[in-house]
C-alpha cells in the first residue's frame, strides 16, 4: 500500500508583525534586507519578543483542524547551522517532552476520507537564499533576511494519503480553511509550502523537499511513487533518504546532504516563558472563530435554497463568500449566488485579477436587485459586470453609458411584439395550441431588442396580443 504523509508550512500572512520582533510579517513589499531589526537578525544581545497574536492565530488553526490544544505552550530551539538562519537555531515547538505545541492530534475530512493531523506547531520562517552565477564554480549565495522570523505554522499529517490526487484535494481544502479563518492568504507566493513523505509496500520512507507549489507537489508525489514502484519491480531496495524536487527536470533527486544524520539538540527556549492556555482563553478564541466553511454551506442551502454545488463553491472560497455575505438580502440571495458562480468566477479566478478588480459588494447587490426588478436583463448584466470590473463605475452609469437598460416601456415593447407576431405567423399558431412554445417568440423579441427587453413584460404582451 502506498502511504503518503505531508508537512505543510503556512505563513500567518495576515499578522502585522513577525513572530519575535516588530518587523512586518508582510515582507514581500520590501527591498532586499530592508525589513530587518536587531531581533530578527539575531544580533548579539537581542531577545525574542513573542507576538501573542501569532499564538492565538495558530491555536485557531489547531481548533479548526479538530486538534487538541495544550494547557501550556512552550518553544524549543532547533540547532543547526545554515546561512538563512541568523541565530543558527530555529525557534520552534516540540512534543517530545509532553504536548506543548499549539495543536495535538486532529483530523479533517477529504470527501469521505479522514486525514489525521499529527501535530501543529508555530515557528519562525528563515531568510531566503538567492543564488547567482552561472556555474557551480563561480556561484555565489546571497541572503535576504526580510522573511526571517515570519510566523509560520507547520501542519504535520499522518501518512494517510494513498494517491497524489488525495494529496491535492487535501491541500485545496486546507488552504480554503486557512483562508476562511482569516489567518493567511494561501494565494500569496510562498505563503504555503509542503514537503511529502512517500513509501510503497515493502519500501522505506522517502522524504521529498524543496517543492515550490502544490501543483508540483502532486507531480513530485506521482513521480516518486512511479520511481519507487519501478525500483521495486526490479527488486532494487528502496532506501530511506531525503530527495529534492528538481523543478526544471520535474524529477526527484537524492540529496547528498546528510540531513537524516543531523542532530538538532532540541532544548527549551528559556527566553520565552511558557504560555498558559486555560479554558477561558480557549473558549474566547473559539467564540472569535469565523463561521466554518461547512456551516456556511449548510446555511446557504437551508436558508436561501441555493443548490448544493453552488453553495459549495460559494462557501469554500473566502473571496466569494465574503462578497456574498456583504451583498445578499433575503430576497436577492439566490441571484447574488448565481452572479458569483456563473458570471464572476471566470473573471476573478486568480489573485492578480482579484487585486485588479474594481468590483465591490455594493455593485453586486445593485446588479442582483436590478435583475430581479427587471431593470437589466441577465444577458446585459454580464456586459455591465465586465465594465464595472474594469472601471469601478456605478451600475446606473454603466447602464446609461452602454445603453444596457431593459426596454420596459410598454408602448415601445408592444410595437416590437406586434412586429414579431406578424413575422412569425406559424409560431404564433403553434403557441396558440401549445402555450409552452411561446418562449420561442420571447426569444425573437429579445433578438430584436439585443436582449434588453424586460422578459416578464414581453411575455405578458405576447400572451395578450396572441390571446392565450
Amino acid at each position: 500500500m502506498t502511504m503518503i504523509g505531508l508537512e505543510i508550512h503556512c505563513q500567518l500572512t495576515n499578522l502585522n508583525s513577525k513572530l519575535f520582533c516588530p518587523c512586518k510579517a508582510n515582507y514581500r513589499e520590501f527591498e532586499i534586507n530592508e525589513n530587518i531589526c536587531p531581533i530578527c537578525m539575531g544580533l548579539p544581545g537581542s531577545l525574542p519578543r513573542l507576538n501573542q497574536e501569532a499564538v492565538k492565530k495558530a491555536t485557531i488553526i489547531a481548533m479548526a483542524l479538530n486538534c487538541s490544544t495544550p494547557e501550556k505552550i512552550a518553544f524549543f530551539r532547533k540547532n543547526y547551522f545554515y546561512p538563512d538562519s541568523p541565530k543558527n537555531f530555529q525557534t520552534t515547538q516540540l512534543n517530545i517532552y509532553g504536548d506543548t505545541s499549539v495543536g495535538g492530534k486532529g483530523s479533517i475530512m477529504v470527501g469521505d476520507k479522514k486525514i489525521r493531523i499529527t501535530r501543529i506547531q508555530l515557528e519562525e520562517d528563515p531568510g531566503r537564499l538567492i543564488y547567482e552565477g552561472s556555474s557551480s564554480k563561480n556561484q555565489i549565495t546571497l541572503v535576504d533576511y526580510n522573511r526571517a522570523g515570519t510566523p509560520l505554522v507547520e501542519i504535520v499529517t499522518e501518512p494517510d494519503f494513498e494517491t497524489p490526487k488525495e494529496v491535492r484535494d487535501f491541500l485545496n481544502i486546507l488552504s480554503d480553511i486557512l483562508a476562511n479563518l482569516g489567518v493567511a492568504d494561501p494565494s500569496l507566493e510562498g505563503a504555503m509550502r509542503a514537503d511529502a513523505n512517500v513509501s510503497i509496500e515493502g519500501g522505506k520512507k522517502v522524504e521529498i523537499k524543496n517543492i515550490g507549489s502544490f501543483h508540483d507537489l502532486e507531480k513530485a508525489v506521482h513521480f516518486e511513487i512511479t520511481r519507487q514502484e519501478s525500483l521495486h519491480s526490479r527488486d532494487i531496495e528502496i532506501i530511506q533518504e531525503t530527495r529534492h524536487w528538481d523543478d526544471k527536470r520535474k524529477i526527484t533527486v537524492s540529496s547528498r546532504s546528510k540531513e537524516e544524520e543531523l542532530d538538532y539538540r532540541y532544548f527549551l527556549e528559556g527566553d520565552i516563558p511558557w504560555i498558559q492556555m486555560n479554558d477561558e482563553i480557549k473558549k474566547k478564541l473559539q467564540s472569535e472563530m469565523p463561521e466554518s466553511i461547512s456551516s456556511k454551506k449548510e446555511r446557504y442551502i437551508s436558508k436561501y435554497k441555493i443548490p448544493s454545488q453552488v453553495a459549495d463553491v460559494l462557501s469554500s472560497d473566502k473571496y466569494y463568500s465574503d462578497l456574498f455575505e456583504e451583498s445578499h438580502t433575503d430576497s436577492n440571495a439566490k441571484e447574488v449566488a448565481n452572479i458569483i458562480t456563473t458570471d464572476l468566477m471566470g473573471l476573478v479566478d486568480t489573485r492578480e485579477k482579484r487585486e485588479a478588480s474594481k468590483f465591490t459588494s455594493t455593485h453586486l447587490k445593485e446588479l442582483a436587485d436590478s435583475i430581479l426588478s427587471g431593470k437589466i436583463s441577465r444577458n446585459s448584466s454580464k456586459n455591465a459586470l465586465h465594465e464595472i470590473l474594469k472601471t469601478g463605475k456605478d451600475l446606473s452609469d454603466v447602464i446609461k453609458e452602454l445603453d444596457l437598460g431593459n426596454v420596459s416601456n410598454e408602448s415601445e415593447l408592444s410595437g416590437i411584439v406586434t412586429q414579431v407576431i406578424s413575422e412569425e405567423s406559424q409560431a404564433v399558431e403553434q403557441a396558440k395550441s401549445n402555450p409552452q412554445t411561446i418562449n420561442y417568440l420571447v426569444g425573437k423579441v429579445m433578438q430584436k431588442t439585443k436582449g434588453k427587453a424586460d422578459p416578464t413584460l414581453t411575455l405578458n404582451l405576447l400572451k395578450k396580443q396572441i390571446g392565450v
Partner: protein
Amino acid sequence: MNLNISALDFVQEVKTGNISVEDFVAKTIERIQNVDDKLHAFLSVNEKSIDQARDIDKRIKSGDKVGDCFGMPISIKDNICIKDSKTTCASKMLENYVSPYDATVITKLKQQDAIFVGKVNMDEFAMGLTTEFSAYGPSKNPWNIEHVPGGSSGGSAVSVSAFECVASLGSDTGGSVRNPASFCSTVGYKPTYGLISRFGLISYANSIEQIGPLTRTVKDTAFMLNLISGLDPNDNTTIDNKNEDYLSGIEVGIEGKKIGIIKEMIGEGIDSEVLSATKDAISRLESLGATCEEISLDMVKYSVAAYYTITATEAGSNLARYDNLRYGYDFPLEGYEFNSYISKARKKFGPEVTRRMIIGGFVPSAGHAGKYFLKALKVKSKLTNEVNEAFKRVDLLVSPTVPVLPFKLGEKIDDPISLFLVDINTVTANLTGKPAISIPFAYSNGLPIGIQLMADSSQDKLLLQAAYALEQTVTLPEVPI
C-alpha cells in the same frame, strides 16, 4: 578630590554643588589613565565622558531637570550593548562589533544621566572566573596585582574597587558578579531571575543569568536596582516588581530573622581563613538579632556539574550565531562554501569558549542527552525544590561567596576542574533563580573575603536589608593602589 565615594554620596555632593561632575569625571579618567596599565580593567574608554559631564553641569546650573545619576561615572561589562560603541565580549570574534542599539539597562541609565566611562574586561563571553580567558589579557586584583580579580565580571569589580568608576554593571551566570566582588572587596548583586531586563546582554546561558550591579555599598546597589529593574517588553522573562523602592526601609535590620547556614558550603575544600570569616559573619548576624541554624542542601554537591552541563548546552546554541556572516571581524567569504567558512571563522574563539562549545555540542546530543543534559535539568529542579523547602523554614541563607582566597594569576588556568569547583557556592542562586549578594567582609594577608547572602525569589528587598545590616559591622581598609 576623593574618588573613594559611594554612589549616593556622589549624587549628594553634586546636588549640593560641592563637586562638579566635570571635575569628578575628569579625575576618574585620569585615575584610569594612571592605574589601568597595571590593572587592565578597561577594554575601551569613552572619550566623550568629559563632554557629557560638562553638559550635565550646565543643565544643573540652568536648573534643568537632571536624572537621578547626576553624571555618575559607571563602567559597563563588555557584554552589555551600548549603541554605537564596541561590544566585544572580550573575544576576537567580536573584535570590531559595534552595537546598533542600547541594552534596556543602558537606556534606563542614560535617562538618569549616568555617564559610561568605559567598557570593562571579562572572561571571553563571560566563561570563566578569573578574567584570564579574556582575549585581551587578564585584569589584575587591585589588592594584590599578582592575584586574579575573579570573574567573569573582573573588569567591573576592579574598576569599582580601584576608584576607576563609582559603580559598574556586570552579569552573573554562575557567580560572575559575586565572585569578582568577593575577590576585589566590592558589593556584588545577582537579582531574582527576571528582575532586570537582559535585553542587550549578550547571552551565555540565558535561562539562569542576570545583569547585576557592583558597587561600594549595599545602599548603592539598592539605588542602582531602583534605576534598572522592572518589567521590559523587550525581555519576556522580566517580572513586574511594581516599581519597588529598594532603598526605602533598607535600615530596618534583621531582628528576628531566621538564617540558614548551608552546610555543604562550609565543608570540604574551604580555606581556613574563609571558614573563620564565615563563622565571624554568623556570630555578627546573631548579634544583630537573627537566629542562625545549619541546614543541608543535598543537591549542592551536584550543582556545579549540573551548572556546567546546562550552561554549555545553552552556550552552544547562544554562540552559534557567531558565524561571521552578518557581523564580526574582517575575514572575506569569497571562495568558501558555508560550512568550511564558518568552521574557519569560528576558530577565533578562545580555548575556554571552544571547550564549552565542544561540551555543549555533546551533552544535549541524541544518545547522550539522557545521561547528561536531562539529568542536569533534573538536578536543577530538585535543587530548586530543596531551596524552596529551605525558605519555608528560614528567611535567608548564608555562606562564603567563594570557598577560597583570590589565587594567583596562572595558578589554576590549566586545571579547569579545580577552577570549576570555585563556583560551588554561587551557582545555586543561578540554578534556582534566587537573589544573592556578596558583601566585603574580611581580609587575609591583604586579600578580600566576601560573604554571600541568599533570599527567596522576589525577596530582593529583604536580602538588601540583611546585607546592609551585616555591612554596618564591617570596616574596610583602603585599597593599596
